[in-house]
């Protein structure tokens, strides 16, 4: 790595795209800088204060985060600074001001670190004081060391250990039992007993145990909190949906084809075609006119040259972010397993406390109070429901994080619980196993313009795959033949979608036109009939076909090898259903089912379907994965939303559920065994409080690290 020999002249070039940044008011600016690969770059960026002294007072780069912190002089133009950075070959992005939450988190982090430092210093020195005591010092020197360890233990308990007091008090106020209760009990008993012992001269001191316990617990909790923070569902998801944002409300910009939006906005001029699929499930672009809204997470497909969008919401306030916030909240809900784990933990603690008191009484009665205290202290310290009470949430949040990376957004952790028990999987046909893109294979050729016009007027009002396919076919015909069925659409007086059946529309004069599934379909295609009037006169019979997604068959086969029962559930006719079943190898077929019937069938199994159209069935199934239909609707009805089309995420979900269950079981076994052995050793006197103080945090940390190691993507 050589010194970067970049020319550090002041830039006169000022990129227009940063002009907006000059609106930024604050004196302290944080930029995310792309392209910092080498350490020489760091030096260069930190020289901004020397290269542009009139504008930059201070420039500090943070290598791990790749962020540049600037303190600006009054009158500084951020755009010029950005221009200079760009000239050097990096790409700056303006990061929104640190939220209060971030600053608070940083402050808390620092405070925790200090607490650990103090606790460690105290524990270390108390332990050193204890060595002479263990090694047989006597006389006034003994008292001296005992007094010193007492003196050091006071701040250890009442300053470093204050979080334990807080937690127990808070739980008490809420009439619950905090897992810190036995620990606090142990610390207080140890402390006061040792104090008494110093004054009575009986030399039974536990200051080293309790200070070591406090230090080790604080450290392990800090470490675990850090692990958990990095596990949380965070920017990862937003990244998936949107590009990194650098706009502020009120900005105006020109959208370009292919641009992924990072903020909500309203179109001021021109026209744009937008892909709203994450919201509506509709992958067909929608044309927006001035006044129309766009959202973060949508993508510009086409834009007219004069199009201008004005930003209306950024960051946390976008619709996407708010939706995800709801998901996050749902995820915080505890699953059944977690509730069970909590209950188990609490009963363990109650049991331990009871045993502790009983043992103490027993020992006192037998005349061995001192030994009793020693053993009970060890018991209180060593037992810990950590593997369950603390590791379980970690298991879930980690699983959720991994799943997101695989394209599965789990709204409700309960899905993971239930997923492990699933035996039968029900698949919707259209859009799930198949592309959902029906295409017309026949039946329109003979139609006249008028019929086509009427048919077209109906299908444009429906989003159903059948409707869309027919619409596309008619458009194609219109282009070829210059018949104009696409102009002058009929305006219906009444229009209805009949779920599972078809469309119905009434026109002026009361005539009803229907487009429905054919009841006497003898073919393997999907067939719909265009009917007129109350007599249901058949005007057209259109045949459509839906292609199977390429991986569907293989995935079904794999699932069957893993002993899952597979079934197809569809509102479609038996023949096309059976056709798809044959192609995929599915054994059971339920065709022509109404949504209510579908819901009934899938009740006990895993349902995989279209978020919009299978909403009822998805909400009733034991576990449900929505494969399409827009996140908004899907999240309402299903527990899991697949960000990838098709069923390829289904095996991923299932194996993760199993992994979660396995890990939880392992943790449970470990926790039980550990506590039993620990309790036995303590009560029989083989475990000293000091040893317990070291073992317990070590065991907790081991469980966490082990859990995280188990829950990796490759293990799933």
């Amino acid at each position, binding site marked *: 790595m050589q*010194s970067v020999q970049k020319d550090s002249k002041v830039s006169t070039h000022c990129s227009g795209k940063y002009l907006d940044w000059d609106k930024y008011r604050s004196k302290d600016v944080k930029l995310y800088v792309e392209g910092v690969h080498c350490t020489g770059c760091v030096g260069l960026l930190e020289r901004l204060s020397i290269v542009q002294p009139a504008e930059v007072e201070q420039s500090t780069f*943070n290598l791990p985060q790749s962020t540049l912190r600037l303190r600006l002089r009054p009158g500084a133009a951020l755009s010029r600074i950005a221009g200079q950075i760009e000239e050097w070959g990096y790409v700056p992005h303006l990061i929104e001001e640190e939220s209060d939450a971030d600053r608070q988190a940083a402050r808390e982090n620092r405070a925790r670190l200090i607490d650990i*430092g*103090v606790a460690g210093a105290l524990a270390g020195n108390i332990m050193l004081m204890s060595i002479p005591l263990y090694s047989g010092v006597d006389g006034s*020197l003994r008292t001296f060391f005992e007094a010193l360890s007492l003196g050091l233990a006071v701040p250890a308990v009442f300053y470093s250990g204050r979080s334990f007091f807080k937690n127990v008090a808070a739980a008490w106020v809420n009439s619950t039992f905090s897992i810190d209760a036995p620990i606090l009990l142990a610390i207080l008993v140890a402390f006061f007993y040792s104090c008494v012992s110093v004054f009575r001269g009986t030399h039974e001191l536990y200051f080293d145990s309790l200070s070591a316990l406090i230090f080790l617990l604080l450290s392990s909790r800090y470490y675990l909190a850090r692990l958990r923070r990095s596990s949380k569902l965070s920017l990862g998801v937003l990244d998936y949906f949107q590009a990194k944002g650098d706009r502020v409300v009120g900005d105006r910009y020109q959208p370009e084809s292919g641009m992924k939006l990072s903020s909500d906005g309203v179109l001021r001029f021109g026209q744009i075609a937008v892909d709203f699929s994450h919201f509506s499930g509709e992958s067909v672009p929608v044309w927006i006119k001035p006044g129309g809204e766009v959202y973060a997470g949508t993508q510009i497909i086409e834009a007219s040259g004069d199009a201008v969008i004005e930003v209306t919401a950024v960051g946390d306030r976008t619709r996407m972010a708010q939706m995800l916030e709801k998901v996050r909240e749902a995820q915080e809900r505890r699953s059944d397993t977690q509730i069970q784990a909590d209950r188990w933990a609490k009963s363990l603690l109650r049991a331990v406390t009871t045993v502790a008191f009983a043992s103490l009484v027993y020992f006192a009665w037998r005349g061995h109070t001192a030994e009793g205290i020693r053993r009970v202290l060890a018991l209180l310290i060593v037992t810990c429901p950590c593997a369950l009470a603390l590791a379980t949430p970690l298991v879930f949040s980690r699983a959720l994080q991994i799943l997101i990376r695989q394209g599965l957004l789990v709204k409700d952790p309960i899905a993971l619980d239930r997923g492990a028990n699933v035996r039968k999987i029900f698949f919707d046909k259209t859009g799930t196993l198949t592309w959902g893109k029906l295409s017309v294979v026949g039946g329109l050729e003979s139609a006249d313009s008028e019929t086509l016009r009427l048919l077209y007027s109906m299908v444009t009002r429906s989003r159903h795959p059948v409707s869309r396919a027919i619409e596309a076919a008619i458009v194609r015909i219109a282009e070829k033949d210059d018949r104009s069925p696409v102009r002058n659409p009929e305006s219906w007086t009444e229009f209805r979608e009949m779920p599972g059946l078809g469309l119905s529309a009434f026109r002026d004069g009361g005539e009803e036109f229907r487009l429905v599934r054919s009841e006497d379909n003898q073919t393997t295609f999907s067939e719909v009939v265009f009917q007129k009037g109350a007599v249901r006169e058949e005007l057209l019979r259109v045949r459509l076909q839906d292609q199977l997604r390429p991986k569907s068959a293989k995935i079904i086969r794999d699932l069957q090898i893993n002993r899952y029962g597979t079934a197809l559930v569809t509102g479609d006719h038996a023949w096309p259903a059976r056709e798809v079943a044959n192609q995929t190898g599915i054994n059971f077929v339920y065709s022509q089912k109404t949504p209510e019937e579908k819901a009934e069938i899938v009740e006990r199994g895993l349902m995989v379907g279209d978020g919009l159209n299978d909403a009822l069935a998805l909400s009733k199934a034991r576990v449900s994965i929505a494969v399409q239909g827009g996140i908004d609707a899907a999240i309402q009805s299903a527990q899991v939303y697949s960000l990838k089309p098709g069923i390829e995420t289904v095996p991923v979900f299932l194996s993760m559920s199993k992994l979660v269950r396995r890990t939880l079981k392992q943790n449970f076994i470990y926790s039980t065994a550990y506590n039993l052995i620990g309790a036995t050793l303590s009560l029989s006197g083989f475990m000293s409080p000091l040893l317990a103080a070291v073992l317990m945090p070590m065991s907790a940390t081991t469980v966490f690290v082990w859990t995280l190691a188990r829950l990796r993507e490759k293990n799933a």
Partner: protein
Amino acid sequence: MNFGMEIVWWLVPAALAMGAGFLIAFIWSARNGQYEDLETPAVRILFEEESKNKKEQIDAAGRTL
């Protein structure tokens, strides 16, 4: 002033006082944000932006560069 092991009465508090002093220094440095970024400082010391106040630069053989 003929101490035996009683010198320890003095030595230990003195050492503890020093330990306390260092602890205070630690608290200050944590509060001051010295530990916010523990990667970039290691890299910063590597920059050699200094220029020398040289009249002449000489190479190993004594020749002027």
